[in-house]
């Protein structure tokens, strides 16, 4: 099983930028139902800045790349998504360390560390109608696939599918964290925008590993 390369991690973020840019209206539409209608534009701006940053200052290691990307998101994405996605990428980078390749197991550990960072930062629990409801099942699916002997690409595909299912499962939930929680019962009946954007990120990861 091939290791995951620095170039693939960079490709992941480029694909993530393309995906959130393409799905910008969809994310904004979800966010206008239960938030402040800026999720699509915030992430488009943020990941656009990430790709610009990586193009102008190539990173020498996976940790450096994820750290630079996380810091860029933090400085360009207003609202809670900035510190949440920033924390996720920073923790992932720290888990991998100063290397230019990682094993599938290391990627699994990085995703787990990213999830734990998001949970620590946002203090959201499963069922609160947040990105955790997609990212949590995705990390579990990734780990389960590895246990079954699958490689990183297949595990990432399983993670993306689990994220999409988790995203869809947020629809009936009543939000208990973030701005949507101000709506109380009225937040039910809408998919959580954060769960939708993190699903796009995991789909981008699966695509980057499949083609790489």
């Amino acid at each position, binding site marked *: 099983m091939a290791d995951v390369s620095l170039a693939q991690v960079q490709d992941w973020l480029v694909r993530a930028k393309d995906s959130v840019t393409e799905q910008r209206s969809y994310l904004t539409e979800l966010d206008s139902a239960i938030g402040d209608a800026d999720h699509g534009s915030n992430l488009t*701006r943020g990941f656009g*800045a990430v790709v610009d940053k990586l193009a102008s200052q190539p990173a020498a290691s996976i940790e450096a790349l994820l750290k630079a990307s996380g*810091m860029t998101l*933090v*400085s*360009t*994405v*207003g*609202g*809670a998504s*900035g*510190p*949440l996605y*920033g*924390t996720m990428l*920073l923790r992932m980078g720290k888990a991998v360390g100063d290397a230019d390749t990682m094993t599938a197991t290391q990627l699994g550990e990085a995703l787990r560390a990213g999830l734990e960072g998001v949970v620590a*930062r*946002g203090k959201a629990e499963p069922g609160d109608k947040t990105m955790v409801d997609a990212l949590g099942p995705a990390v579990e699916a990734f780990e389960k696939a590895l246990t079954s002997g699958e490689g990183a690409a297949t595990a990432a595909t399983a993670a993306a599918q689990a994220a999409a299912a988790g995203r869809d499962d947020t629809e009936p939930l009543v939000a208990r964290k973030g*701005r949507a929680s101000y709506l109380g019962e009225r937040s039910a009946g809408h998919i959580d925008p954060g769960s939708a954007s993190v699903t796009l990120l995991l789909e981008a990861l699966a695509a980057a590993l499949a083609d790489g």
Partner: protein
Amino acid sequence: MVGIVVVSHSEPLAVAAVELAMQMVGSDPPPVEVAAGNDGGLGTDAVAVAAAIQRADAASAGTGVLVVTDLGSAVMSSELALELVEDLSGPVRLSRAPFVEGLVAAVVQASVGSSLEAVEREATSAIQAKTAQLAGETEWPATDETAQESASEAAPDADAPSDVQSIEVQIVNPEGLHARPAVLLAKAAADLAVDVSVTNLDSGAGPASADSMLELMSLGVRQGNRVRLSAQGSAARDALETLAGLIAAGLGDGTGDEGSSR
């Protein structure tokens, strides 16, 4: 002095709040650093917050930094900033205080050279002044002056130390003990070697710590009210006379005939 970091979604909001707080402290303000907005718009930026903490830490010479935040993700960005900072010389605390009240209280308390713990406590209790103003009273340990007095008469040795001294003085300020005279009194009290408490004899409110602007303000002292200053120990008499002298002189407000200086 303890440093203050102001984290806001809006730069104009942060700048105005800092201006308001700085009006209270005059020529010797504590280090205050602002991290407001994100990428030119509304929002907060953990990287900018981390940089502001580093600057405030450097300026505070190891005494510590208090971070005062406005809404929602300002807290999250500040928590993330604590992961990003490196090689700090002192501790950093995130304040639970309301933004404007907490910032004013923190800046004032830091300006008198208080510890980070004291600055944080003062900021956190900042909401009490408004609560007291609107409720007309506040929850004092002993709310009924009569009960307090009769209790100490009944058992003079039980709770009251025998060397407590007090002095009574009338408030001359036209607007009572409002923010700026309260700051002056708190600063003067903080410079003393003894703890002085203040009770409003007309309303029974108190005792408040004389070195806390917010506690003083929550006494609801009006022009003409009499306050009792109490302290104990060998330096008590000098301390009480110093503060009583300042109060009688109007705490920088003059004695009223030229009106309030706003």
